[in-house]
């Protein structure tokens, strides 16, 4: 492989590129989906190719191809340079600069006890179909579905600065979902969370630990019970979020606004920019003193963990919010250089055919010292919300509105009636400033989100979020006309 990567780097240098890198990626995936007692799909896919990124005359160019041959590598490197030349016709006065990184030769592999590709398809099917049967024991369930998927990515990165990095990452995930509908009402319940379930950089042991069958019957019953549950009231009240809904809250209102490319307007026409502008770094009160957030790409098993990012920058743990104060961004080598910093190591591409952009790693709310029971007992009147159902936030990541699958009233320190169609809304920093209780490390959990969309052409990143249940005071809930 070194021969091929050298060809790309040599061609780019010879044509005048001041910097070049190449990624060669081989990705395979297997997935099983079941629906109402049938195997809806069982399939595998494989994608191999390479991408060459060059800096010429202070401007970027990128090209890629699925044909991994010496001639094609040469052609693609030439094309990347010619594209960079076109970029240079509409460039800034200041050329792109790269923050320094130490060149390394390294290998990294994610933890995997049981290879998910070695588990028989029959066993995966049997597990999902049994969960399907248990969900549909309640005759009110219209659609029961389940999925299991596995991914393995072999990646080689080489740069003109002398890095040569080989990484192998294995990911596994699963989830089940029940949908009930009657008399103009439709409700869903899922486990362990919505949007396909939970994922990790682990092996089959991760799916075994989920114990899908222990939860399937409850999931079906809850979907049906929600049809006749009380409507969530329109009120300003105290809100307790479970850790899976907090995952979405962190993702949308912290993870995206700390991406430095958004801050600099590079996503402006598509996903938007960020309210966390550079003058706020180090001083802005993002949340209450109970709010501590880190970006940690080094956690074993995290879906957003890796050894090195796609610029060859080592995985790091970075403080994002310290006792409520906003401290640092997620950055790349070129955006970090703008602030006179080094890269936080967050550049990732979702395939060989895409250029790396700044992506979340594992963005985690650090645990506090409460238990969920203590938080509920300490709440006179409020609502407990669980598992995300819908999400929307403005293009600077300030005004958000999130809906959940299920909620419960909290009255005088006890859980009360089940509520349906619950949602809540707020302004990001006002919401995090209202946080006055975070549960402890025993209730802290790391979740994997395999569907974070960003960029043009669109890329889907696999990221992680750790959190424990938390309370927010005085939140507007029950938005919209529901009758």
């Amino acid at each position, binding site marked *: 492989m070194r021969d091929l990567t050298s060809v790309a780097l040599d061609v780019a240098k010879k044509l005048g590129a001041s910097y070049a890198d190449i990624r060669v990626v081989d990705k395979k995936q297997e997935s099983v989906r079941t*629906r109402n007692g*049938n*195997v*809806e*799909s*069982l*399939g*595998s*896919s*494989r*994608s*191999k*190719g390479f991408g060459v990124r060059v800096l010429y005359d202070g*401007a*970027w*160019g*990128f090209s*890629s*191809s*699925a044909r991994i041959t010496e001639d094609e590598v040469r052609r693609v490197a030439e094309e990347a340079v010619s*594209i960079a030349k*076109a*970029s240079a*016709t*509409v*460039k*800034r006065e200041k050329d792109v600069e790269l923050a320094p990184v130490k060149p390394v030769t390294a290998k990294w592999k994610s933890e995997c006890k049981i290879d998910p590709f070695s588990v*028989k*398809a029959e066993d995966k*099917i049997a597990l999902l179909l049994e969960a399907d049967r248990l969900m549909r024991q309640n005759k009110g369930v*219209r*659609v029961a579905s389940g999925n299991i998927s596995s991914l393995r990515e072999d990646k080689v990165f080489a740069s003109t600065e002398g890095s040569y990095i080989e990484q192998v990452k294995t990911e596994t995930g699963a989830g089940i979902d029940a949908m009930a*509908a009657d008399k*103009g009402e*439709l409700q869903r319940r899922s486990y362990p969370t919505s949007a396909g379930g939970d994922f990790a950089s682990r092996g089959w042991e991760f799916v075994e630990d989920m114990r899908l069958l222990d939860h399937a019957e409850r999931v079906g019953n809850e979907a049906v019970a929600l049809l006749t549950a009380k409507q969530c009231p329109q009120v300003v009240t105290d809100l307790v979020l479970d850790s899976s809904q907090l995952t979405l809250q962190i993702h949308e209102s912290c993870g995206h606004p700390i991406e430095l490319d958004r801050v*600099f307007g*590079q996503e*402006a*026409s598509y996903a938007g920019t960020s309210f966390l502008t550079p003058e706020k770094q180090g001083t802005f009160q993002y949340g209450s003193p109970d709010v501590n957030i880190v970006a940690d790409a080094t956690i074993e098993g995290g879906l957003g963990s890796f050894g090195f990012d796609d610029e060859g920058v080592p995985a790091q743990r970075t403080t994002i919010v310290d006792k409520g104060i906003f401290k640092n961004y997620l950055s790349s080598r070129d955006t970090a250089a703008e602030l006179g910093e080094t890269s936080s190591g967050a550049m990732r591409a979702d395939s060989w055919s*895409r*250029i790396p952009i700044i992506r979340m790693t594992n963005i985690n709310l650090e645990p506090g010292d409460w238990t969920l029971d203590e938080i509920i007992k300490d709440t006179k009147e409020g609502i407990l919300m669980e598992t995300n159902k*819908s999400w*929307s*936030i*403005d*293009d*600077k990541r*300030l*005004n958000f*509105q999130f809906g959940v699958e299920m909620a419960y009233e909290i009255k005088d320190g006890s859980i009360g009636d089940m509520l349906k*169609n619950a*949602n809540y*809304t707020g*302004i990001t920093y006002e919401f995090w400033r209202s946080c006055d209780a975070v549960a402890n490390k025993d209730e802290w959990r790391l979740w994997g989100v395999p569907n974070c969309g960003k960029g*043009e*052409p669109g890329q889907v990143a696999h990221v992680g979020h750790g959190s424990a249940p938390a309370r927010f005071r005085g939140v507007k809930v029950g*938005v*919209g*006309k*529901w009758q």
Partner: protein
Amino acid sequence: MRGLLGKDEALKMAGRVIDASPGDMTEVLIRGGVSRLTRFSDNYIHQNVSDSGHSLTVKVIFGKKIGTASTNSLDEDAVKDAIEAATRVAELQKPNEDFEGIPGPEPIPEVNTFFDSTYEFSPLDRAMGVKAITERAAAKGFKAAGAYSTGASELCIANSLGVRAYNRSTQAHLRTVVMSDTGSGYADALATDVKDIDPGLVARTAVEKCEASQNPQVVPAGEYEVILEPRAVADLLSYLVRGGFSASAVREGRSFLAGRLGEKIFTDLFSFWDDGLDPRGFPMPFDLEGVPKEKVIMVDKGVAKGLLYDWKSAKKEGKRSTGHGGFGGWGPMAANLFMAPGDSTVEEMIKNTKRGILVTRFHYTNMAHPMKVLVTGMTRDGTFLVEDGKVTKPVKNFRFTESALKVFGTMDMVGKELHRSGRSVVPAIHVPAFTFTGVTEF
């Protein structure tokens, strides 16, 4: 042509896969092409990319046991591996009692969806288009961000019952947000032929919107008359269609249309349909099952008339597929929506508005409740207060939480001009009461 297989080669390759498959039935999907994109922000190009490639997916079927596998390498060994992998998983399967077979061949209409001008558009051509925008923005002291993308793609569907469908097409899209610290404006243009895109017009529209949006004022959330420009209309329409008009969703009781087909649900002014052959959209003569696309009138003068069928949902109801199938069993999908124009202009809508909001486009919309088609999202890049028939000032962006059923059930003016937005072709509309539930800080 570099990056494209062409009809003969694609169909030959699909035929070889079918011949080599041991299945009782086999389906093959080959798709790919070239995709090029120039991205800019802060008035300079910060990303410039090109990629090309294909994927081949094979579905091997034994009785009612189905296995699929895909590869992005089209060399002989990789394709052989994919056939073997699909065969292996099909053999391991349990029979899918829901399986209704695969379609046979039908004549496929010809549509011209490929333009050499778009295929040959170079990085330098794109840079010149970008320059037209950045220079106009910079002249006003604004910053422009956006993207100019062009691409050529091909799709080939074949099966062992004789389906042999191939189409190639081109797409071009120029979009920009022009910004200052106190306002922004959006404009875009979509075409199959890049010659139909006028970067100067896109630049002028976005810069004018940005100028008009400076220093927005806070107007409280609440119920307002609203004028929705076409991009916002297309966004809401997509939620009405998603799930709502799928025959399988209706059969499973998860659509608002369950038991209501034939009812007058919307205003007389509302008619829309899906037409895969209309060149005003992005034509595609067949679906991902290789079935020719039929024009389906979904709502006619407010009456819910037609549903979208794929092969499976059609077989279950003893009907014909309308050519709206996917390859992965997601159920029928719309891809070429058209809404009937009315007889108003946006200026007339403004003139007829006592106190309302003019919306350029929405941002990050999401379904809050599928049966009520309750949608939430934000306004963006040009939101204005209209008072006594005039646009009086820019306003800070709103959050809305509103039912698309109500919007298309009560709209009382419809634009005479149609605009291509995403895969829809729609007019602007005026709605007498629209619910904004929050305000943001810009």
